[in-house]
């Protein structure tokens, strides 16, 4: 394990202030449970969602395990203990269009403002959207077209009603309820998220996407997403997140499970832009997420691409268990931190099958007084003959008060493995900036150009239109971070 903690000098002490344009609050009538967590609350959540009894029991079991756990302290993040009794675990818009009602116009406006058209007439051509507002999915588009191909794309709540046998079969099979503190909490109280099922041999013709919005005050969001690709199926899934600007911290504790059967491929892309708090570190979302994929069948492939530019604290390690022979796992990450943000993110690649291979490309950019850590594990089990891994983690520092750390762990239990690891830490160099500026490009655009170049290997993995969005978003985030 190496621990490189480096700071560099650069004359960039200007105000690291910028507008968070998604910081508005929507005035929507909500159906809420009281704050606090106990077995009654869990039963009440389950009852609100009209869940089968096994699901209620599953939640309660997870809750009991959670109570015995302590929150993880090993990450390079610092925050006061979260008071789990001071959080509201269920808050849903009262008008639920999915139960035959009209969509609350305020909700429609909210998603319109966020650039997510949920009404049928405004649908994006190549993308099916599931829109989750606090604890509830309020709209899912393109469903009929997908249904014709046998693809199930709906909210987790609906899946529990309509496809309980599928949910029961796969839920918790990659991230067991007792996996870790936040996964256990999520398993007990999860609200909504997406369920995607791509049947054998089907190539999903559009991008599936879920947009998560936290709106209500003092409310946590406990997203639960499950994607199953049967033999030979393919799906590309996109996730986006925003939240209002509030001065207290809010919790987003998600669990995402991906399952790829023989020859299947799942491509999962995230642009996370939760509210990050102000320049004094006041407010912002705590983003404690467990994401894991399981290459169950031979020749399957799971690819995680994440662009993390928001949240006060990010604690997230999208991982792949490479069980099927010849299976492939990929992790491409850009994590940008500014102000007092803290990110501890990376991946785990667990090689079990023969000839499995994994690629990790991580780009961390720190500005302001932020702390940005890469934490990764590559584990090659004795059965994983001829396994290969290539890891490249680069950190870039903007300013002289930020930190970049890398904590890579490599465990190889077979002599046939080939593992490559590259890591660099650099400051955005004065020479590069001067060179680009000397061609007439102003300092902000020059920084953005250099950072975009730095992130290119990750951005090119995103679906085309999403990649353009990600570049624009990063440019916006970089504004005023130098100068």
């Amino acid at each position, binding site marked *: 394990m190496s621990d490189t903690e480096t700071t560099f000098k650069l004359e960039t002490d200007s105000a690291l202030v910028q507008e968070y344009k998604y910081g508005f609050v929507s005035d929507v009538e909500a159906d809420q449970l009281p704050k606090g967590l106990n077995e009654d609350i869990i039963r009440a959540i389950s009852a609100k969602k009209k869940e089968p009894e096994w699901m209620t029991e599953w939640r309660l079991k997870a809750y009991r395990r959670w109570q015995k756990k302590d929150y993880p302290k090993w990450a390079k993040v610092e925050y006061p203990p979260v008071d789990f009794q001071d959080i509201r675990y269920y808050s849903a818009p009262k008008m639920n269009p999915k139960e035959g009602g009209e969509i609350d116009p305020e909700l429609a406006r909210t998603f319109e403002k966020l650039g997510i058209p949920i009404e049928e007439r405004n649908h994006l051509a190549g993308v099916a959207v599931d829109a989750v507002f606090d604890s509830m999915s309020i709209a899912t588009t393109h469903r009929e077209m997908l249904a014709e191909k046998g693809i199930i794309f709906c909210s987790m709540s609906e899946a529990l009603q309509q496809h309980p046998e599928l949910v029961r079969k796969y839920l918790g099979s990659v991230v067991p309820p007792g996996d870790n503190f936040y996964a256990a909490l999520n398993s007990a109280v999860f609200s909504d998220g997406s369920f995607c099922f791509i049947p054998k041999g089907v190539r999903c013709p559009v991008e599936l996407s879920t947009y998560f919005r936290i709106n209500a005050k003092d409310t946590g969001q406990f997203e639960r997403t499950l994607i199953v690709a049967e033999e030979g199926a393919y799906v590309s899934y996109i996730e986006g997140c925003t939240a209002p600007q509030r001065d207290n911290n809010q919790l987003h504790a998600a669990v995402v499970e991906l399952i790829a059967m023989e020859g299947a491929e799942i491509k999962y892309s995230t642009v996370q832009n939760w509210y990050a708090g102000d320049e004094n570190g006041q407010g912002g979302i705590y983003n404690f997420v467990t994401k894991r994929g399981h290459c169950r069948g031979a020749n399957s492939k799971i690819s995680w691409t994440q662009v993390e530019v928001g949240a006060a604290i990010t604690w997230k390690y999208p991982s792949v268990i490479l069980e099927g022979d010849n299976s492939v796992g990929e992790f491409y990450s850009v994590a940008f931190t500014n102000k007092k943000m803290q990110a501890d993110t990376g991946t785990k690649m667990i090689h079990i099958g023969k000839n499995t291979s994994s690629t990790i490309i991580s780009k961390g950019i720190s500005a302001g007084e932020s702390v940005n850590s890469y934490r990764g594990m590559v584990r090659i089990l004795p059965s994983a003959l001829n396994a290969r891994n290539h890891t490249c983690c680069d950190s870039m520092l903007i300013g002289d008060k930020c930190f970049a750390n890398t904590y890579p762990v490599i465990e190889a239990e077979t002599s046939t493995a080939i593992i490559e690891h590259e890591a660099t830490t650099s400051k955005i160099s004065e020479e590069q900036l001067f*060179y680009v500026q*000397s*061609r007439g*490009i102003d300092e902000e655009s020059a920084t953005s*150009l250099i950072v975009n170049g730095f992130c290119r290997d990750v951005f090119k993995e995103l679906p085309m239109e999403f990649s353009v969005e990600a570049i624009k978003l990063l440019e916006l985030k970089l504004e005023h971070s130098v100068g």
Partner: protein
Amino acid sequence: MSEKTPFFEIRNLHAKTEDKPILKGVNLTILPGETHALMGPNGSGKSTLSNVIMGHPAYEVTDGEVIFQGQNILELDPDARARLGLFLAFQYPVAIPGISVAKFLKSAADARFGQGTIKPSQFIKQLREDMKFLEMNEAFINRFLNDGFSGGEKKRMEILQMLTLKPALAVMDETDSGLDIDALRIVSKGVNRMVGPNFGLLVITHYERILRYIAPSHLHVLIDGQIAMSGGPDLVKEVEKNGYDWIREKFGKEVLV
């Protein structure tokens, strides 16, 4: 140009880096259509002068002015100087990984000439022509800027940028260093295409051989942060023929190399 708004004039320029004075009162005037060569031994302040003209943040100007297009550009950021029509061909161009030559040059051209004034198709066409002129492989257009380029390739890329950005005044900082004769010929060909009645050029060099390719109208010798000698075509001829060791000797032996 009238007396009041000189095209390019360096007046009594003093500059230091890390508290070490390097430029100690440089005076130099360039008019449109003129090509000036600036020679001098290592450590005399040649590269400092080019960096200060462009506005490198590591150098602090302690006195003097640099007037370009009628204003003191020392108050401007490097990018604003470039947009006024100033260009520096770097001695050591840096790499910008992940950004293609085409993207970089389009961004620079948009900054210089205004967003949207050049059509992308027209831009690429012109870029291809210029690359052909500089005997560069077209594949360079998609390579990352200076990333893994050889020394000669980097220098040609500097000249390509100059042709693209069409500056009014260019400073070439030892562009000839490390170039073989063939590369020197190509680079000079590019530079000579720029030369004309509306273009001023300052060629900073350590070697007299470039004077054969780029015919300067004026020559200056910089020694210990000051212009020790200036002259017209006669001095150029003299230096071309006999080198400039004799000038160094003339100014005493504290001037080494």
